[in-house]
């Protein structure tokens, strides 16, 4: 973690535009070549309440949020009241003139002077903010031009004027903030900024996903929004279903008929899909399920984060059938694992789930452009078979995978069945057939095991303290390990970006080579640690668990580790 990293926290009510300012600023920093990592905190309401948009940025990689901030952009008084006490030394507040800084260092921006209309205030804030960081005005100008281009030159010009006025206003102030250390050369050119859900959508599109059925549910909706907004040109068919049950059944119908299909949802919606997950299992129909977690049970905390649906995802569906669960830890992994999910589900014809959570979903990051050319081609299903008369959808095979034909292209018939069926796909209730088909389906688990993505180890192979994490827990653990190492501990992180299946051979040496293994999870019961014990017998020595709706942070992890590092 860069010692040169700083945090800008923008706070205000829902509807005040804080996300707009934040996104513009984060994008400007990305274009300037900085590393950027955003954490968003909002409430389940459209107006009012108290929301924040935190940008952590610097010339070197940043992994996640920290508790304090260097610059506090206060769109209202409440922001000062709640957060100013956490200003770091040398930090400052940026606020409007009606906000009382309450003795904290900072500036009161004369927004009404800088911008004639309220709609320009966001750009004014951007100008001031850019200026405090000694940002390049040219980059800000281009960003503003790009952003408002669709609205015509007049709007662009008006915004540019406000931007410049605000930028210069701050420079004229008798106030200086330590400028950001320069970004590394060359970083600027090939970077994009997107959040976890956008990266999932982009990965799906890169995998040729062309069908989406979904029912809106925070925090998953922006995957659907991105797929629809960006995928339309690629020919993506999308339909907002009447409910989540319809969404998954529709995706399965589409997949059967030739689509590369996915659904997006969160815990409650996923619960409603459980029966159809089982249908995907027995019909052997490929489908990717994006499950973006939020705290439960039931409606719980709709806009907050948690990693508590792991068990449900592992065992969703009655009866037994194989599956794979991918759990990206970063925005980049969101992209790659979304692509991989389609690859796996297509080849194994069984449901593949990608688990994210609100924190990662809303986390904007600057990342290198994705290299589409390096991605493997995904083999499409068959449109023709030679043996027209003898084609059988569920032909037995050693690896459990049968040739999947799309109906309507040749005379062979494609029969898929929710009942136990024979090789042709017709209902068949006999025990020998049952055993053959059940074992055929379960046999696909071996292939999935063979292709498991190994967990990634950061730090020494033999450690005093090994932090075990999965999915979005990565950033906090990486930063905590840096702190631990600074304090002289031989600490490592073992991060699982695939939590099912698990393969002991890939990680047992690290667990056994560590003096102490502590699970770090965003839930109250240590679900992954439980899974690990089930599969390997290995019991972690401790756990740092967070289930208050907020993401794991290095500070939180360090506090939780206190007894282990005393």
């Amino acid at each position, binding site marked *: 973690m860069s010692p040169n990293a700083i945090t800008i926290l923008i706070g205000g009510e829902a509807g005040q535009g804080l996300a707009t300012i934040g996104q513009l600023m984060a994008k400007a920093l990305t274009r300037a070549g900085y590393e950027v990592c955003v954490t968003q905190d909002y409430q389940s309401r459209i107006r009012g309440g108290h929301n924040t948009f935190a940008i952590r940025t610097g010339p070197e990689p940043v992994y996640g949020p920290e508790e304090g901030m260097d610059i506090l952009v206060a769109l209202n008084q409440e922001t000062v009241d709640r957060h100013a006490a956490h200003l770091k030394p040398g930090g400052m507040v940026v606020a409007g003139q009606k906000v009382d800084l309450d003795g904290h260092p900072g500036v009161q921006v004369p927004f009404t002077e800088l911008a004639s209309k309220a709609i320009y205030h966001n750009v004014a804030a951007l100008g001031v903010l850019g200026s405090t960081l000694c940002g390049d005005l040219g980059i800000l100008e281009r960003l503003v031009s790009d952003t408002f281009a669709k609205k015509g030159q007049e709007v662009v010009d008006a915004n540019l004027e406000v931007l410049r006025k605000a930028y210069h206003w701050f420079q004229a102030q008798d106030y200086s903030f330590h400028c950001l250390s320069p970004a590394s050369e060359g970083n600027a050119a090939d*970077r*994009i*900024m*997107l959040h976890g859900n*956008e990266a999932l959508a*982009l990965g799906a*599109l890169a995998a*040729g996903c*062309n*069908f989406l*059925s979904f029912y809106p549910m925070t925090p998953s909706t922006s995957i659907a929004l991105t797929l*629809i907004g*960006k995928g*339309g*040109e*690629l*020919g*993506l*068919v*999308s*339909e907002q279903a*009447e*409910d989540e*049950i*319809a969404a998954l*059944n*529709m995706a*399965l*119908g*589409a997949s*059967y*008929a*030739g*689509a*590369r*299909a996915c659904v997006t949802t969160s815990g409650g919606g996923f619960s409603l899909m459980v029966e*159809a997950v089982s*249908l995907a299992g027995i*019909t052997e129909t490929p489908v990717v399920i994006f499950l973006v977690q939020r705290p439960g049970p039931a409606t719980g905390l709709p806009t907050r984060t948690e990693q508590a649906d792991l068990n449900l995802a592992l065992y969703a569906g009655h009866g037994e059938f194989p599956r794979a669960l991918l759990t990206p830890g970063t925005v980049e992994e969101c992209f790659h694992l979304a692509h991989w999910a389609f690859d796996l589900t297509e080849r194994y014809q069984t449901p593949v789930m990608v688990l994210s959570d609100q924190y990662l979903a809303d986390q904007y990051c600057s990342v290198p*452009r*994705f290299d*589409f*050319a390096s991605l493997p081609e995904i083999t*499409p299903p068959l449109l023709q078979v030679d043996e027209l008369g003898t084609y059988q959808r569920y032909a037995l095979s050693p690896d459990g995978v049968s040739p999947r034909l*799309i*109906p*309507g*292209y*040749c*005379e062979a*018939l*494609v*029969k*898929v*069945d*929710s*009942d136990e069926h024979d090789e042709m*796909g*017709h*209902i068949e209730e006999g025990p020998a057939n049952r055993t053959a088909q059940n074992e055929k389906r379960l046999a696909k688990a071996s292939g999935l095991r063979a292709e498991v993505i190994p967990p990634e180890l950061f730090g020494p192979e033999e450690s005093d303290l090994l932090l075990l994490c999965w999915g979005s827990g990565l950033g906090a653990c990486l930063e905590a390990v840096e702190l631990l190492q600074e304090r002289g501990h031989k600490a490592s992180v073992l991060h699982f970006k695939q939590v099912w299946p698990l393969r002991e051979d890939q990680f047992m040496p690290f667990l056994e080579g560590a003096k102490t293994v502590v699970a770090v999870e965003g839930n109250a019961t240590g679900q992954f640690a439980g899974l690990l014990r089930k599969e390997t017998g290995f019991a972690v020595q401790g756990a740092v668990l967070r289930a208050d709706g907020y993401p794991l942070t290095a500070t939180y992890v360090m506090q939780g580790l206190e007894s282990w590092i005393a």
Partner: protein
Amino acid sequence: MVRVEDFGNFETAWCPGCGNHSILKAVKQALAGLDLAPHQTLLVSGIGQAAKLPQYLHCNMFNGLHGRALPAATGARLANPRLKVFAVSGDGCNYGEGGNHFLAALRRNPDITLLAHDNQVYGLTKGQASPTTAQGQKTKTQPGGQPSVPLNPVAIAVAMRISLVVRAFSGEPDHLAAMVAQAAETPGFALVDILQPCVTFNKVNTFQWYKERCYMLGDDHDPTNWAAAMRKADEFGDRIPLGVIWRGDRAPFESLAPGRGTPLAEHRLDRSALEKLMDSFA
């Protein structure tokens, strides 16, 4: 030329005398009449006695979950316009467990023919009341009589002005076959609610009961007159009209839904479009 025999002859698990036998025959007859070969047709079903129909003829089949035939059919229809898509299930499947999808299909008007075998009872699970069971009718799970009134799917479908609303009867197999064919040829959602005696569990709505009440709609009924259609849809008691109750002119869902309209299996990844798309994140 597709012939009835092309659809094969399977042994069924239905009771002797069950109305489903005639429906199966009528479906084959309709498909042959339309010259639709087995591989051009997709039958999507839920679970129940009616929903076994696709097991008993040569055709593409997606035998899904109880109540979920319509969403699966809609997905298949969106993905693959090469297929003529039917959804086939019972009254319990379509109007009970699957009621929400029925409502959604009425809104969407997808180019799907829904064959709803309406025996006014849950057959496969042995005789509980279904959403179309008459109020007061006694069953083992409703020993005091079914407290709800029956759903009138035909009236609701007319109220929503889908492309075609038909009432048919398994005891009039030629008429039924003609209705199935007309429904299949209708672009947009076509509901064929088929009265079907369940000889084992419905001792009220027997073949005789239907026979005595059903009559064919004549030329005097104008299925494009909404108010008239609502009146006919509402008629279910001493007299039950058979035939096209309503014909509308709503555009089929597929023509309005996003997507290019080409079969999704034929899409190939456009890398340069993807690169351009990535630019929008820069």
